């Protein structure tokens, strides 16, 4: 059943001018949810965790894991430091949504992070933003300084014994630092090498201390859940994947951009009505629904598909970050896949052999096919390669590199074969 999205009113980035200004934010009820949980007896730490768990905010960074459940993995406090690391690395091609929160509603995210800190009894919050987003880092620095000035961050909030510090830091150009344990390494001032799990960050995270990592958009939902209740949140979008989503629509559409709508909006509505249809009156060829690692879908696979985890899984893809890359009928799928493979080769950190070597060879073979030098058997070699990369590495980058290769070849095989040399005999 399709959700009613036409009457939807945005709540993450509502239509209120100058909401990035802390006074405007406070005037519109901002930091009220924080004050409520910190000061009212009915909100114990675990009550907040349970409310967020009940809302089923599925992580907006791509994995789609229940945020409240993740919080509940934090061990009991032992008097030492505990951390919340907010992931604003946003590097998956097709994804450009969190920067909208930094720019238009930074305090909603800050409030959400502070509520999360209260729930998990965190002592310090770090927000890690990708280095390229330096303009948005400056906006966040301003917002944080304002929140400190107004007494929403710091010691003994609202006269209680709850204290928390909030620091901002940024990267220097590395896709892998969006992987949660790699981000922790980068925060610790090292090369962004993902860590072997277990131990999970909740046990041993930053500096060996309990740490939870959440996406910016995920945390921005938290004050809304506290203010309006888990039931309200679950009433938005689809039952198994509820809530508002920032859809980033890019590629060959007339009105690309970030749109806030419920989960479960039909893909064709998003392309044709929300984003104004395909440019130059062309036909739709394919869609990458949630960032470049999510499997591409052909136009015929999109007919009754909606943007939620279940519907996309049925269609043969994933929700990812809801960064939708739309491709028109003129798109060269071989060229597109080669470029995606180049990206993952460039961004592989090099720790694990299947990923370091696999991404490199995939790019080389695809380049050969793109240049008309490939053979049909190279396609099967590529498919075989993907099975030897997927699930055999420390982090999911190898999977993210393997999926587009497998699914683009399988779903557009004729196009790849057409680029291959017709002769299949061995060349010495």
């Amino acid at each position, binding site marked *: 059943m399709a959700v009613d999205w036409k009457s939807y009113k*945005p709540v993450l*980035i509502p*239509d209120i*001018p100058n909401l990035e200004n802390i006074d405007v934010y406070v005037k519109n009820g901002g930091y009220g949810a924080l004050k409520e949980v910190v000061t009212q007896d009915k909100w114990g730490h675990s009550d907040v965790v349970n409310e967020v768990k009940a809302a089923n905010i599925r992580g907006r960074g791509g994995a789609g894991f229940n945020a409240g459940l993740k919080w509940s993995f934090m061990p009991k406090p032992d008097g030492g*430091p505990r951390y919340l690391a907010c992931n604003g690395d946003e*590097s*998956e*091609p*097709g*994804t*450009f949504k969190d*920067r909208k929160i930094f*720019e*238009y509603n930074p305090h909603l995210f800050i409030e959400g992070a502070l509520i999360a800190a209260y729930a998990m009894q965190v002592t310090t919050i770090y927000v890690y933003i*990708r*280095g*390229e*987003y*330096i*303009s948005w880092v400056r906006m966040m620095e301003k917002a944080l300084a304002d929140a400190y000035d107004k007494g929403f961050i710091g010691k003994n909030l609202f006269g209680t014994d709850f204290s928390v510090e909030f*620091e901002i*830091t*940024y*990267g*220097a*150009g*590395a*896709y892998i630092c969006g992987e949660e344990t790699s981000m922790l390494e*980068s*925060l*610790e*001032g*090292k*090369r*962004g090498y993902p860590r072997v799990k277990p131990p999970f960050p909740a046990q041993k995270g930053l*500096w060996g201390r309990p740490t939870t990592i959440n996406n910016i958009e995920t945390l921005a939902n938290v004050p809304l859940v506290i203010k309006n209740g888990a039931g309200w949140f679950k009433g938005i979008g689809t039952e198994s994947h509820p809530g508002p989503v920032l859809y*980033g*629509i*890019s*590629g*060959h559409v007339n*009105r*690309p*951009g*970030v*749109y*806030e709508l419920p989960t479960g909006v039909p893909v064709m509505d998003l392309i044709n009505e929300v984003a104004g249809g395909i440019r130059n009156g062309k036909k739709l060829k394919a869609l*990458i629904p949630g960032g*470049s690692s999510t499997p591409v879908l052909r136009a015929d696979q999109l007919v009754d598909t909606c943007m939620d985890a279940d519907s996309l899984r049925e269609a043969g893809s994933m929700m990812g970050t809801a*960064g939708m*890359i739309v*491709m028109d009928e003129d*798109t060269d799928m071989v*060229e*597109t896949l080669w*470029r*995606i493979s180049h*990206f993952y080769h*460039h961004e592989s*950190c090099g720790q694990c052999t299947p990923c370091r070597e696999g991404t490199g060879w995939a790019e080389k073979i695809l380049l050969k096919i793109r240049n008309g030098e490939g053979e049909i058997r190279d396609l099967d070699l590529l498919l075989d390669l993907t099975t030897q990369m997927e699930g055999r590495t420390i982090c999911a980058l190898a999977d993210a590199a393997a999926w587009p290769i497998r699914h683009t070849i399988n779903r557009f095989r004729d196009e790849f074969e057409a680029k291959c040399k017709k002769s299949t005999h061995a060349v010495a």
Partner: protein
Amino acid sequence: MKDNYSFTKEDLEEIEKIKAKFPEVMPATLPVLWVAQRRFGHVEPPVQQLVADTLDLPAAHVHGVASFYTQYYKEEKGKYVLDVCTTTSCQLCGGYKMLHYLEDKLGIKAGETTEDGMFSIQSVECLGACGYAPMMQVTNDVYVNNLTEEKLDTVIEDLKDGSMPDFESVGMPQFEKRK
């Protein structure tokens, strides 16, 4: 390549503030490399050594970090570094066309610097501006969105005059009626 670099008093004050954010000194590596690059325009090995000495960390560690992240310039670049995004959405919307236009205009290839030291061009991976493709970033700073050949001409002329492009705030298209 000169080898006598030093931080100013203001730099050192900023570095102290950075160190105060973290329980250990090592996390200051990335931010202090940024301070150094803003001061000297690059982080060549002598600058990496300065960062290591300032933070009292092994030079090998600082070199490891500097060499891992793409935004640090491990060699001197032009005064303005034009990072043209060519990853998926930008590729689909003409990122390579913009890159090649710039290459022809400035007479250099991606990865090179003009002889007068004014411009370097780089073809870079996704910068997170997919809806505003094709786009580029100027010297790790401002994003220039929705590139056209005419827009590139203007930006290059302005940069030659020493003026950086303005920050372009791209709103939410849902609220365009408001304006």
